[in-house]
């Protein structure tokens, strides 16, 4: 484009009839190069952001492991970093367990509901129903998480859960936070899985119908397996949203890191710990301050691993059909 040989006379520098095929850097081409450099600089900002995230996490994480043995952190079963003296303990397992446990509850809600909605939208729903259902799911996805948290704490726990299980249900509990988080994740899973199933070519369906298969068989035995890698990517994306979700757990899930199994009791997750701890004005450089970063780093590594698999799967399923 701008890089090809240019006729110098046309840039009006000399006014003579000299015609040359060598490239003369005109004001215009210099401007073009400047614009290009500026745009590249803008694109580089996102890389700088990543470096800043990793840098800020790593510096404090290294400082943390100067004070705490890494094996005590990774395999310790007691997480009480804010306690004083002998009671202070930095075993991250309770937080990891809390994160996994709440995410599992959320996925137990979101996976079946999300996939059923996706199959319905991709295979069954008439156009006019889709026009209603899709915006509803999009709206659900657009509700701020603080509103989900409010609902979990002020309605779902006292009215629904205590209605079913009685008053043994703690005001802050894993079940309420997990289930409501499931509804937060549901639209993500539904929309990505629906995209994957809609991308399955019509000829596959027609072939199956031609062999006498019913609608259910086509949906579950033909379309679902053909879209499987996209569907798995949807599940991973949903899982990574659940793992990183903060406010619902902070409000309705409680603030005690525990290895317990009882979903009626409170559990804390990594993300909720970060938000809860950094709210207090903890001084820079203290061990409490460093815990935020080491937990943040653990969380980031987990989500990036999940994201890595999700991107690879999506890429693979894109290549299946010509």
């Amino acid at each position: 484009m701008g890089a090809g040989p240019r006729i110098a006379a046309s840039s009006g520098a000399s006014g003579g009839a000299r015609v040359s095929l060598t490239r003369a850097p005109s004001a215009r081409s210099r401007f073009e190069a400047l614009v290009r450099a500026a745009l590249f600089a803008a694109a580089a900002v996102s890389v700088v952001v990543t470096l800043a995230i990793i840098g800020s996490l790593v510096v404090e994480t290294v400082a943390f492991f100067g004070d705490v043995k890494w094996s005590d952190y990774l395999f310790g079963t007691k997480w009480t970093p804010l306690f004083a003296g002998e009671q202070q303990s930095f075993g991250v397992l309770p937080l990891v367990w809390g994160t996994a446990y709440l995410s599992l509850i959320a996925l137990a809600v979101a996976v079946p509901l999300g996939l059923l909605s996706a199959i319905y939208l991709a295979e069954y729903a008439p156009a006019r129903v889709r026009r209603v259902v899709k915006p509803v799911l999009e709206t659900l996805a657009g509700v701020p998480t603080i509103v989900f948290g409010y609902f979990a704490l002020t309605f779902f726990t006292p009215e629904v859960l205590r209605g079913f299980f009685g008053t043994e249900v703690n005001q802050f509990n894993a079940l309420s936070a997990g289930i409501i988080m499931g509804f937060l994740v549901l639209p993500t899973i539904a929309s990505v899985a629906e995209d994957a199933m809609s991308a399955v070519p019509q000829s596959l369906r027609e072939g199956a119908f031609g062999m006498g298969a019913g609608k259910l068989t086509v949906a579950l035995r033909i379309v679902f397996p053909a879209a499987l890698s996209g569907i798995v990517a949807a599940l991973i994306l949903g899982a990574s949203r659940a793992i990183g979700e903060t406010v619902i757990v902070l409000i309705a899930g409680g603030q005690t890191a525990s290895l317990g199994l009882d979903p009626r009791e409170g559990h804390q997750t990594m993300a909720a710990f970060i938000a809860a701890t950094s709210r207090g004005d903890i001084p820079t450089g203290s061990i409490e301050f460093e815990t935020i970063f080491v937990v943040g780093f653990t969380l980031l590594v987990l989500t990036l691993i999940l994201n890595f698999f999700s991107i690879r799967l999506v890429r693979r399923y894109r290549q299946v059909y010509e």
Partner: protein
Amino acid sequence: MTGAQIAARAATQTTVIPRRSGSERAREGAFRVLMYGAVGLAFVALAGILADALADGLPVLSWDFLTRFPSRILPDRAGIESAIVGTIYLMVICAVLVVPLGVATAVYLEEYADRDRWWNRLVEINIQNLAAVPSVVYGILGLAFIVRGPLSLGNVLLAGGITLALLVLPVVIIVAREAIRAVPPSIREGALALGATQWQTIWKQVLPGSIAGIATGAILALSRAIGETAPLLVIGAAASPRFNPDGLDSQFTALPIQIFVWTQDPNRAFVERAAGAIIVLMAILLLMNSVAIWLRNRYEQKW
């Protein structure tokens, strides 16, 4: 075989295809029930979330509620003026920072970047990964880099705006790229053939052609930004301040933070205030989404 015979056989053959068995039809019906149930539950969840906030919050909505400062002691006199003003400021700062940066990145990636260069691939992979980083981690970045550390701005409005801008930057880049990609190559080729430089082509043809999509995406990204709680909590937004921010270096709060503080209050009267603030927040989001949809329908280019 005569035509009549063929017709006769064809007529009988329709009966050869086996009828759906009863059990298959039952399974089909059961699956339909499951699907309707799943979609229905999603509807119920959305309706329940909205109805709960409306039921708790409508009684506290009044002009006073919108124009008074929060109170820690008197729920009846507590309002959300500082939270509304803070949220609007944050939105403006976020937009000013993220729209130019996001669109410039998108233009670079779509119009200039050579995919064979490793640094361009790095930028692309990086953006995909940034989009997956949990919002609370952006809060940590804000705390370590903007509030303290290199920038050391303190927990002020500008720090909140920058943090939110970085959070939604990947979203803006992704939607802007899609909008730019939707402009057909023939438009660019036409402009270049007439002697326009590459930047003139972009500035005069590509960007005007994709402005509706970019604006729609930017508004949706901003509506995500102002609904975020976690990063603002981490960088230390003020709880219930009795003043409006009066500059970029002023302490601030935002609607999600005020909702969070009131939701956790043991006093039921404050929890109702939280619901009132939720209604206001949802109304702002609804307004922004309506504008986005209107923009898309009104200005979307058909090529």
